[in-house]
């Protein structure tokens, strides 16, 4: 390669590909450093409260609401569903370690045998199917209630999502989804929550992506119900004019895997409420 311009091009391509293929640990360090630099006055852990970490007045209102949280009914309903016996006499507890209590922070996980990301919602439906029950609708109230109960029993647990060698492809796919622009408005997840995090979108403050996966499921006042993280993915995609994908599609599970890995070291605080 005699042409120096060609050498520069090749070097640039190698550098760019090495950036894109940074290890998950390097990604996490850079991600955290970005938000620490952008919001030097806010503790990283406080981003688990989303936009309420960024605005004192909104935080005060939200804390008042937490005295009588709107997701409380979902926790009770979820507990009843969780304890209900399947037709074969077993229950959800038989499918999970610690009988399914205090385990939400372990999900999503990479299943090396199946070669795919398993979210807690997916594991719940696989549990049902293994015991002869029909799977629940991923956009329905029952799965959201079950998730609310399981999150509630896991409050205070610290995320430490693992990415084994076999899971790197899924992690990278989720990362790419996060940074890819979509829809007629040409926005990526990162456009709003990284590049413009802390800015305003009309009257709303754009939350930081660090902490985005800690508090699900969430009661959103605009939904008037408790919904899952994938409900929010679909809504986000549609807000920028992109067609949402199916909940629990491989791409959304990979995105959840990446986002949750980016929460490593943070504390699970779901279920929660948001505007």
């Amino acid at each position, binding site marked *: 390669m005699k042409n120096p311009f060609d050498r520069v091009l090749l070097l640039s391509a190698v550098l760019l590909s090495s*950036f894109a293929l940074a290890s998950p640990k390097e*990604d996490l360090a850079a991600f955290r450093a970005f938000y620490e630099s952008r919001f030097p006055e806010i503790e990283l852990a406080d981003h688990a409260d989303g936009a309420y970490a960024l605005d004192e007045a909104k935080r005060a209102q939200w804390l008042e609401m937490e005295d009588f949280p709107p997701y409380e009914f979902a926790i009770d309903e979820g507990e009843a569903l969780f304890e209900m016996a399947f037709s074969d006499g077993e229950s959800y507890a038989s499918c999970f370690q610690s009988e399914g209590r205090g385990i939400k922070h372990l999900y999503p996980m990479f299943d090396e045998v199946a070669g795919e990301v398993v979210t807690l919602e997916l594991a719940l439906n696989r549990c049902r199917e293994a015991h002869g029950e029909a799977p629940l609708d991923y956009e329905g109230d029952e799965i959201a209630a079950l998730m609310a109960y399981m999150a509630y029993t896991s409050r205070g647990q610290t995320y430490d999502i693992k990415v084994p060698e076999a899971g790197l492809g899924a992690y990278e796919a989720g990362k790419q989804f996060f940074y890819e*622009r979509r829809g007629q408005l040409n926005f990526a997840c990162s456009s709003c929550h990284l590049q413009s995090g802390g800015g305003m979108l009309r009257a709303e403050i754009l939350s930081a992506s660090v902490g985005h996966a800690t508090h699900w499921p969430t009661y959103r006042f605009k939904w008037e119900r408790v919904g899952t993280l994938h409900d929010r993915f679909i809504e986000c995609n549609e807000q920028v004019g*992109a*067609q949402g*994908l199916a909940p629990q599609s491989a791409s959304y599970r990979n995105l959840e895997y990446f986002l949750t890995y980016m929460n490593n070291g943070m504390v699970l605080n779901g279920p929660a409420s948001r505007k």
Partner: protein
Amino acid sequence: MSACLRRFLKKVSVGGLATAVLVSSLTWGTAVADDATVVAIEGLIGQAESLHDEAQQKEHAWVVTHRLILEARAALSAGRIDDAKSIAARAVQTAQASVDQADREQAVWSARVPQ
């Protein structure tokens, strides 16, 4: 018949004949154009659907394209040919833009990752 009345009737018959010729020529022209135009519009809608499918496979489909395809079909069914044609053309444009976005993002997304 008075001369005045004859002049009036002549004007009316000439005007009527001219109007009839104009209307029939326009109708004839539209009817002929319709067949070709309908085929062209269906082709545009088919092109938009094909591109939209490609964008869906790449997980980059846009909401607006789906809506425009439905609107173009509805306008065609209702005989609103000009609307159908312009809406179908817009559907092709948005579908193409979504495919272009998918291809472009494959190459540039990594530049947004914090280092």
